[in-house]
């Protein structure tokens, strides 16, 4: 669980940034930190994405080699 706390500052900054432009979530963190001139003037964007999943199966699975059964989502 502790590893997820590392991303808490990122989420806080993102949520503040998105309060100003809720329809443009991708790139909001970078725009909040560095401004939007790179994107506006040069068409260069820095987009962030992530997936976190809570999984539970009916079997006790100590190890799985079925990525499509484990919410693989890249």
């Amino acid at each position, binding site marked *: *669980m502790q*590893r*997820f706390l590392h*991303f808490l500052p*990122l*989420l806080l900054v*993102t*949520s503040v*940034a*998105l309060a100003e432009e*809720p*329809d*443009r*979530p*991708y*790139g*909001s*963190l970078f725009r909040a930190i560095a401004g939007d001139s790179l*994107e506006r003037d*040069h*068409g*260069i*964007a*820095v*987009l*962030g*994405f*992530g*997936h*976190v*999943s*809570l*999984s*539970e*199966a*009916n*079997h*006790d*699975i*100590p*190890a*799985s*080699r*079925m*990525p*499509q*059964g*484990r*919410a*693989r*989502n*890249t």
Partner: protein
Amino acid sequence: MPQDEGLNLQHIGLIVCKGDACPPGRIAAPTRNLLSRVGPMPGPRGEKVVVDWALSALVGEDGIYWKTKGFDDWKWNADDAERLAFTQWYLDLYLPLGAGTTVLLGSWHTTLAAEIGYAFNPPNYFASRTYAFAATPAKHVGTLVETRLPLAESSGLASVFLGVTGDWNAVDFGSGAGGPSFLFGARWRSPDMRTWFDVETVYGNGEDDFGDVHVENGIAHPRGGGSQFLALSSTDEYLDRVVTSLTLTHAVNERLSLVFEGLYGFQEGGDLAPLPFAITEDSTFYGVNVGFRYQLLPRLYAGARFEAFVDEEAANVLWGGVGAGGGTVYATTLNVTWEALPWVIVRPELKYDAYDGSGHLFAPDRNGMAQHNTQLLGVLNFELRF
């Protein structure tokens, strides 16, 4: 790849991109009349050469699936559950040739199959993936040229493509008699862009392009990259591998979308079997899946997907590697997608799988061998956008 049930960081990543090399619609609407791997778009041919590019990387449990053999399949983190992978790096050129042409050069997610490598929703409506997705390459290193066909507007929009790449998920071009792999196919879009049809094929030498393994303290750790098919020849014989995907999607109206996918694959058998799941007989795998997504409320969707997939000889290591001997798997997936916040999509999902065949396919024990033929899986997936 051991993974525990419970809370998992699948990945967190960044894409640095320019122009139309950025995932379409995430920053701006497409400016070209043809997008690499996506297909033809409405609009006139551009008159300028455009050079766009993208670089993406992620870290998480998904990292192993997006590594490139010979590039970032490092030994030093082979025993980590959460790994760094450089998922894509490429130039994306638009050329005013013919009715519009694109050239992709570098390392990029494959164009094959209905579901795509990008972790975005849409078009990946489900948190889990199809069996068809698990039978295709994840990415290629090489070049892909796509050109739009000069159809009359009333006939729709169409393009064809040809790619020359290395082995599946690898930077090299194979060993021994190895040569490049070839990607080719065609796309058609209805004039109103509500119906999309894609037929895509990858053909090449499937000999000796399995992912490498790092052994530490007697434990073997897959390094990521390479293909999921282990076929070896003592004489470096060319072992044919072909996979063809056919995808049809249709937006019935603003609320309801449908998808159909068919996939066929073949791997020629080799004559070496250093591991039990090595492919020594000619192997065929194929399947279909259908699905839909329906908008219930402005930020709430419901979806369902139904699959049948056959791997006759358990050629895929995801089957043979857990002791399955070949058969048919059926799967039903139901989910709800809730755009809870601009930067968080919440997807509760249920998936039921049933396997009919030799051996078992689900719930591997600590010895790595599967113990069951059915599986019910619940997932609460959070997609973060920032």
